[in-house]
């Protein structure tokens, strides 16, 4: 698994039955331009499809997007599924993660507890996520490993 932690391949998709595609279209573009290999699974991607693609491509990171407000339900057990598929990647989630006008810190906690290494709100500029990923993949791979395993 050691070789994988430095993989520049990023698996990207919108989880559940969410069809908001514009955000990941922009993200795909931005991560590609930043030199990552992006596998864009598109919208309405299941947990299993994320896991399969991440395993197939030895992904260094799995980026989950959700806009429509069902992210919490859609991500239950997601990290279990990844683990079972032997995926050991940094996991990020971003977008509009709660139904309604929630407090983001609360939302962040919820998704951290579900196992995501980083949680981004919908004001996130792609550059922020790129900077974070550069750091997580190259500078502190072991720490991010620890976090995703302890989830």
């Amino acid at each position: 698994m050691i070789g994988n932690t430095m993989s520049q391949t990023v698996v990207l998709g919108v989880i559940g039955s969410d069809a908001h595609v514009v955000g990941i279209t922009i993200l795909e573009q931005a991560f590609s331009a930043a030199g990552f290999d992006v596998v864009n699974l598109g919208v309405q991607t299941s947990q299993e499809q994320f896991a399969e693609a991440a395993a197939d491509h030895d992904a260094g990171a799995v980026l989950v997007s959700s806009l429509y407000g069902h992210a919490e339900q859609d991500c239950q057990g997601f990290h279990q599924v990844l683990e079972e598929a032997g995926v050991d990647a940094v996991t990020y989630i971003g977008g509009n993660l709660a139904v309604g006008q929630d407090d983001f810190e609360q939302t962040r906690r919820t998704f951290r507890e579900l196992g995501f290494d980083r949680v981004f709100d919908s004001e996130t500029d792609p550059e922020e996520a790129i900077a974070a990923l550069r750091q997580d993949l190259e500078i502190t791979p072991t720490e991010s490993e620890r976090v995703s395993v302890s989830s």
Partner: protein
Amino acid sequence: MIRDERIPSDELRRIDDEIRSNWETGSEVDFEEAISYHESLPDHKRFADVLESADKPLLQPRAGVPRLDDQIELLEYLHREGQADLLPTTIDSYTRDNEYGKAQEGLEKARETGEDTLNGFPAVNHGVDGCRELIEAIDAPIEVRHGTPDARLLAAITFAGGFQSFEGGPISYNIPYTKRHGLEETIERWQFVDRLAGAYTERGVRINREPFGPLTGTLVPPSIAIAIMLVEGKLAATQGVRSITLGYGQVGNVVQDVAALNALQKLGDEYLPDEVVVTTVFHEWMGGFPPDEARANGVIGLGGMTAAIARPDKVITKSPQEFQGVPTKEANASGLRTTRQVIDMAIEQDIDIDGIEDEQELIERETRCLMETIHEHGDGDVVQGTIEAFDSGALDVPFAPSDSAKGAVLPARDDDGRVRIFEWADLEMDDDIKEIHKARLSRRADTEGRDQSFRMVADDVDAISDGKLIGRPRSTQSQEGA
């Protein structure tokens, strides 16, 4: 091979029986009884009549929460405090996926915890009686709004439940809303929905149908949206629908928006059979909103202003909390009142803007090109033509998540902020029209001193949420800034 033909009555009955067995509440539906129920409703709850007889744009918000009592309270609030003329019931995402079991779980969880664990009202689970309770509680017409590729059971239950307006269509609730449903499949399913609405219509209950005009909500060129509206309108008319509201989502350029709404009404009247009453609905900006309520109110204000000039029959309002998530009822009502104030202050004014006719003519010509190619692709049959045209890419929608559309066409704003086509891919269009777009876009590229590229598209996607209409590069912005 599926064609644009009316579903025979026996077939209608067969499908109806079949789909009603998909969930327990399906058995509550009794068509004859439903007709009498609709007949018992007072005039001011008859959606088509209220909409068609209005003499200024009626306002309608979006709103849906899982529990019935909460939904009643929410709609009462929006009617009273938001002065909404027409009310919505937005359906949750599980129901849209026909996952009635999951919706039931969510509904039960909502009932236990009091939290909104679904992003809408699961009308199928509430059943005919639940719907009727809602219809009876609210003193205004209510429309079902959703995003469901296969809305047959939802239609059967909500029509019987007293709703007289139903949003969506086989393209507009497929291409922007789902990845894997084929167009042939959704057309067949919506033919049933329209046929059912037609069956009510024949019995004097004119169910209003409203194709979803904004599509992906993101820089959709007007002619593409209008062509799809005309197709869905024709399909609905074939099945006997007689009240059709064609939709259009604001792009933010006033001239283009007014021109598009004019073209929509004109082409709607032309392309749809005479026996159909065609109305229009204008959706306030459907793309990404600013993450700031004050700025969002500016976006809403521009929407209201555009509506005051174009005078569509209906306006779907946004709330200042659009960016953040499902709005509180207060924010939702406030979007309604901000819009009402702008419309009412501006609508009695004579505001004739130059260039609307020219832009309208361009939009009409483009739309006719698209309608022509659909006609040709289908050898005269609009169903086959639509399927084939999407398949070949001759018809396409920007940012379409669906596998049924190429999603290869890319829009960008010109120097005046009108949405043009930057990447045509295989979209069918007369060369001289393409030249017009190209010229307008290269004028913008000149202004900005940069090449046309995906960067420009991405900048345009973010522009309104960043406080501008046109996604200028940083350098030009600082040059022109104060």
